[in-house]
């Protein structure tokens, strides 16, 4: 079921210079949204910017009838969104797309988050913990450009999961890309490959690398893709990604794909 409703903005919180967290009241969506699903929303009632913007669910709590979105200001659409105030109504279309397929209780989980890719993986992480998945079985690799961009660190540190950080400038954790750190850990055999599910989200160059690594090591890795999404429901074919089985729609066949299936530029 897809809902088209107005949600009530409960709070807007700045997590870093350009990153914001929205909490939105919408009981139906809070109840139905799964990790991996996304929300398509209008940032203005006018026609500039024109199209809806897609954001992965960052949290959904049916007990509180609300969900959260995390976004970075990158253009006029997200700029307008960052200027919203509690009490504002937001035109929502959700939940859309597929969700991650979840690990079995006995499996291990490795999460790979690059920059804003933390948004859906944070929800997946909390979703699994809520389902009594053991935190010791979860490893999170989290990479950003520089220390100031690391968000949610306090929440993540309190979860008793294994946390590996990477910064491109080396201000904290491993110096370099998260894919470099991941590959190093893989090669030094510090990552269990058997009975492990991998999940990745981040910028396209990172996911391309993850896709290559997944093919090489035959990892069961799911990646969540980002794209400009005009319709959100699979009608316009505007958001396709190339895969080994032809073009697929990010909004409807995804946004979650098997990393071994997609062919990224």
């Amino acid at each position: 079921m897809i809902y088209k409703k107005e949600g009530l903005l409960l709070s807007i919180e700045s997590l870093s210079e350009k990153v914001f967290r929205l909490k939105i009241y919408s009981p139906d969506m809070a109840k139905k949204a799964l990790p991996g699903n996304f929300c398509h929303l209008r940032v203005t009632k006018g026609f500039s910017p024109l199209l809806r913007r897609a954001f992965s669910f960052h949290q959904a709590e049916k007990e509180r009838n609300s969900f959260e979105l995390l976004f970075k200001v990158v253009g006029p659409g997200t700029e307008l969104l960052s200027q919203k105030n509690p009490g504002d109504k937001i035109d929502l279309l959700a939940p859309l797309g597929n969700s991650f397929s979840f690990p079995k209780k006995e499996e291990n989980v490795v999460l790979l988050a690059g920059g804003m890719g933390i948004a859906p993986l944070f929800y997946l992480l909390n979703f699994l913990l809520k389902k009594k998945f053991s935190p010791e079985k979860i490893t999170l690799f989290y990479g950003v450009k520089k220390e100031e961009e690391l968000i949610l660190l306090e929440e993540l540190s309190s979860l008793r999961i294994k946390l590996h950080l990477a910064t491109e400038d080396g201000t904290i954790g491993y110096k370099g890309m998260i894919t470099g750190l991941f590959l190093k850990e893989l090669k030094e055999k510090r990552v269990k490959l058997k009975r492990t599910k991998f999940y990745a989200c981040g910028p396209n160059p990172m996911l391309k690398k993850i896709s290559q690594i997944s093919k090489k090591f035959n990892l069961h890795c799911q990646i969540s893709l980002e794209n400009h999404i005009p319709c959100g429901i699979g009608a316009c074919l505007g958001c396709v990604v190339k895969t080994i089985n032809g073009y697929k729609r990010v909004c409807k066949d995804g946004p979650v794909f098997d990393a071994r299936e997609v062919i990224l530029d």
Partner: protein
Amino acid sequence: MIPDLSVRIDKVKFSNPVLVASGTFGYGEEYASFLDLNKLGGIITKSITLNPREGHPPPRTCETPSGMLNAIGLANPGVKRFIKEKLPFLRTLKTKIMVNVAGSSVEEYVGVVKKLEGKKGIDLLEINISCPNVKEGGIAFGSNPKSAYRCIKAVKENTSYPVIAKLSPNVNNIMEIALAIEEAGADAVSLINTLVGMAIDLDTKKPRLSNITGGLSGPAIKPVALAMVFKVAQKVKIPVIGIGGIMNTNDALEFILAGASMIQIGTGNFVDPECSIKIVQGLKRYCQDNKIKRIGELVGKLKTK
């Protein structure tokens, strides 16, 4: 008083003048979970070609000021799979179904049309002689009155469905094309398809679309569309269907005043999936408020003096 919103094209009677444009509404099913499709005047399918088409590589779309560019490349499953996989759902609807047909030769158009002949669930055909994104297809026929005539004539000779010709704005004189397709026997004319446009990413120095250019749609093109609908409506006797940046009831009414008997919602479906249904309700309310018995009374009632 309940106003009469019905419109007729040849033998087909629509409950209201609001259609959803080809390529923006998939094959109807995509929108079924949150719209009552039977409230629409009609649904126009994504373009169907003789053989399946993969479409262009991504990126296929990008946003521009009050508009968007697309170069999908006529991606579709081909006429056989359309009949087998998409038509059964459309057949269950009470609204009118138009199949949009595209091709790269007159023979291909005729081939598709022949395969669609007699299939239950189809009410009309819209012939796309105006796709700006496929080199050999569509636009090749729509940019010249002679080839437009040839294409529509051949289609008419091979179908019993009423035929609508969809025109491109990327031509020297759209009125000549409109007259040519009317002469060829088209039962109605729809306009405009998208305008050729382009966007560039300064950081990468690359075009934003893989196809380099694409078709511009949305509110940005509404003034162009209105002017063309107005001009064509002055020239032809067949019904004119207005398309181009219609986002709300007022936009729809402007097209009707300019001479459109019906209108199509395209990009508006992306912005608000309920846009088309809201316009149906809005037109009804407008007629009630202004004591208009039949929506037809408004068509072409623009005051130019």
